[in-house]
């Protein structure tokens, strides 16, 4: 078995020592720092990117909150304007209603006055007409000329009796 040939041990051990020491220094000084640098850079980059993403998301969140606040403000403002307008309209309506009522009342009063006047005039005319009618009827019936004064008195008496 070649593995047990002791004469072959020294060259193997010496070359193992040489190559392993060289390998160790190559790894410790060149390869490992190179790889760990790259990995560290990547980790740093990922961390900074994540931080940037977090910052941006916070910014977006803030913008959304601002927008919502503005929206709520606009909404309440609009609400105020609407209720103000409603109140104004109601007030105007009330005023115009009151004016209309007053005008109507005035017109009613005027109409009532004129009606009463017309009634009075009509009533006074009724008497005249009745007297005239009575006079002409009497004249036609008895060919008697009766004075207006007498007729009036008779009409008045008859109306009083009727009433």
């Amino acid at each position, binding site marked *: 078995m070649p593995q047990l040939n002791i004469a072959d041990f020294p060259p193997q051990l010496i*070359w193992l020592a040489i190559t392993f020491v060289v390998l160790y220094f190559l790894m410790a000084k060149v390869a490992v720092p*190179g790889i760990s640098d790259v990995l560290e850079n990547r980790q740093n980059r990922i961390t900074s990117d994540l931080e940037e993403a977090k910052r941006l998301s916070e910014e977006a969140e803030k913008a959304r909150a601002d927008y919502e606040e503005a929206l709520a403000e606009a909404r309440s403002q609009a609400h105020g304007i609407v209720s103000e307008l409603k109140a104004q309209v109601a007030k105007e309506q009330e005023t115009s209603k009151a004016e209309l009522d007053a005008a109507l009342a005035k017109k009613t009063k005027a109409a009532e006055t004129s009606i009463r006047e017309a009634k009075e005039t009509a009533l006074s005319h009724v008497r005249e007409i009745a007297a005239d009618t009575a006079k002409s009827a009497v004249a036609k019936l008895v060919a008697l000329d009766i004075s207006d004064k007498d007729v009036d008195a008779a009409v008045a008496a008859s109306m009083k009796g009727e009433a």
Partner: protein
Amino acid sequence: MASDHSPLAQFEIKRLVPMEIGGLDVSFTNSSLFMVIAIAAITLFLTWSMRSRSLVPGRMQSMAELSYEFIANMIKDNVGSEGRKYFPFIFSIFMFVLFCNLLGMIPYSFTVTSHIIVTFALAALVFLVVTIVAIVRHGFKFLGFFIPSGVPAILLVLLVPIEIISYFVRPVSLSVRLFANMLAGHTLMKVFGGFVIALGIFLGWLPLAFIVALTGLEFLVAFLQAYVFAILSCLYLNDALHLHH
């Protein structure tokens, strides 16, 4: 000629450049050649693939980063944050064993880790480093590592020698495990390769199919043994740093 086709012929050390310093044989052998190829391949793999240092890694860069993170996580899980200092050491051990195992899978190549002296030297290096770390860190308290806690005094007479033996057996078990796996796998492939020739064109395809399957298994073993070697080194290091069972 017979020895050339022996299943063990692949493990023979051939002196490519015979050298001698002060009576010591330091010849550049086929084993040395593959050690040099391994460290060159590791360094090339880890630096060439990382040359673009890109933020989003390509295929090769991913593999280099993966091997780095594989060992980094192994140390983090088994040793803790104190193990970071020993990362280059564990990483070098893992990459060296892995590349030697994988290079041995190339036909006509030489498997450095199929020699007990090489695996034993690596295991002894791990053992020495771990023991020195433990002594530097804990001083005499390190001896308490061999005394199990909560055990009656009488049993200690029995248990302390067992603990001491099990501690000193570590490099042996660590090296034999790797060596035996490599030796067995490569020998088996060679034996079945001989069967292919011996059985000829009619029955030779049976051992050939077996070799194909075995090759897949051997790639797994090559990786697994490097992993086992590295993780046991991590566990020993953890014992040295924290001194608890």
